[in-house]
């Protein structure tokens, strides 16, 4: 069945049901960042804000470390993590660079080359 198969695409974690269960609290916290007041509350007390949503120790550590790849492994969805990145002042190209271990300039160049 197509939906229960796990596409084995290197460098890609399929955000499926079990991952959505694992990452629920983390994603819920990131979804809250749609609200300016939530972003402010997080900035005032990062660890306390994580605890309020019941993040696991691994999720909380990955938030405090800004470790995007670890957040994905812990069930984060890029759509909600993008709001966390936005709060940090990072755009999707910055996040791409972080995940690929490249400088932002090198990451942007890689994208330009894809068009050639």
């Amino acid at each position, binding site marked *: 069945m*197509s*939906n229960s*198969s796990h*596409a084995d*695409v*290197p*460098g*890609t*974690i*399929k*955000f*499926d*049901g079990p991952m*959505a269960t694992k990452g*629920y609290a983390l*994603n*819920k916290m990131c*979804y809250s*960042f*749609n*609200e*300016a007041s939530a*972003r402010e509350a997080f900035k005032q007390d990062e660890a306390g804000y994580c605890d309020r949503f019941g993040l696991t120790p691994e999720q909380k550590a990955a938030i405090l470390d800004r470790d*995007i*790849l670890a957040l*994905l492994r812990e069930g984060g*969805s*890029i*759509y*909600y*993590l*993008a*709001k966390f*990145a*936005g*709060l940090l002042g990072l*755009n*999707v*190209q910055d*996040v*791409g660079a972080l*995940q*690929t271990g490249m400088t932002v300039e090198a*990451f*942007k160049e*890689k*994208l*330009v080359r*894809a*068009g050639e």
Partner: protein
Amino acid sequence: MAQVLGGITTSHIPAIGMAMDRHEEDTPYWKPFFDGYPPVRAWLEAQQPDIAVVFYNDHGLEFFLDKKPTFAIGTAPQYHNADEGWGIKPIPPVTGETELSWHLVNQLIDDEFDMTVCQELRVDHGLTVPLSLMWPGNRYQHIKVIPVCINCERHPMPSPKRCYKLGQSIGRGIRSFAGDQKVVVFGTGGLSHQLDGERAGFINKAFDQYCMDTLVGHPEELTRLTNDDLVEKAGAQGVELNMWLAMRGVLSEHVTELHRHYHIPVSNTAAGVLVLENED
């Protein structure tokens, strides 16, 4: 009977909205992208559609994992945009439409599509960026919008085939509506891109061009793909092709390709534009 004028495909990434906010359309980075749009705007200006059915996905403004629809449709008189958390400026309210919307809901439920029906709905950049692009200066309030939202965020997602059939049902609904409205259909998002993981920045130009070629004349061929195929070939966010397929499903079997544009990159994404005129 209401009439389908044709369909338009367009990227909907937030960076486009931000570039327009900052008046960067003519900068070296953005010009090659925005150059794709004057012909689209000219066609809209000539055709003067009354209603736009917009297939988009919600990236986490209105819908969260707590209650995540596979397919949602709006039937509200108005839609609001709001803060998405990372700095895109909300745009003025979008005008809705209730009569054709409810007629489409009736058609869809009759055709066994299990819609979530929304009488109040905040719409995110997936829907608003295309409106800003088509009617610069946010002069879109004359057009009545029917939002149709497709889950592209959490697997399992509706298959390409199911999305195409969704469009076909909506096409039947429009054509059976007693009225003389002219309807345009937007397939938003895509083309190949991946935001997450070590594979972030993946783009597949050859596959994108195959999709654009095939969508025009042989859309059924694309419906044989699975979402896993799309992730592999078009990147994790390349599943947004499903919105293009839904749009294509609304149109007639034969369409005329009036305009095509393709540019890499805008932000992390390959951007494709098509204007397809309906034949019936």
